[in-house]
């Protein structure tokens, strides 16, 4: 099973409306992505907490439908 970039983006946007998101399909197989996400919601949070926010936004798909999503998260400069 795979997920489309637009679907991943929509889920993240729904949870973090201000997020700037760039997603790269690493293998072209719809299953290995790298995402760079910038959102005010990340400010003051540890990396683990930032990634947990993204995983929560993906509502359980990470680790299941979505095998690999490399994350880089940060608050706006």
């Amino acid at each position, binding site marked *: 099973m795979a997920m489309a970039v637009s679907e991943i983006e929509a889920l993240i946007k729904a949870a973090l409306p201000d997020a700037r998101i760039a997603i790269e399909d690493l293998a072209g197989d719809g299953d290995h992505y790298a995402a760079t996400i910038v959102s005010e919601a990340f400010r003051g949070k540890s990396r*683990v907490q930032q990634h*947990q926010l993204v995983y929560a936004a993906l509502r359980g798909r990470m680790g299941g439908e979505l095998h690999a999503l490399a994350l880089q998260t940060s608050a706006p400069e």
Partner: protein
Amino acid sequence: MSDPVFDRIQSDVAANPVMLYMKGTAMFPQCGFSARVVQILTHLGVPFQTANVLEDQGLREGVKQFSNWPTIPQLYVKGEFVGGCDIVTEMFQSGELETLMQDKGIPRQAAA
């Protein structure tokens, strides 16, 4: 309420200053992300213990709930969840991981 898998993880991470839940073993990792974290820990020269989640479905699901983290590998230092492959890689590259190990008093050993 006591969950036997959580109890096991709790005692694993308490007994082993650097504990890695991974797919496969340190010698034969069975996933590229797990392999990368093993490589980083080996490079840092810190002693670490691993648990293979592929041999234990209960552990595989349990460790995800324990840390509220959906993926394997998972690295714990002195009982604290540090992160998965991305975070460990980022911290290694910035030098933060080495600092964390020093701050937590993890001794370096000569590379085997």
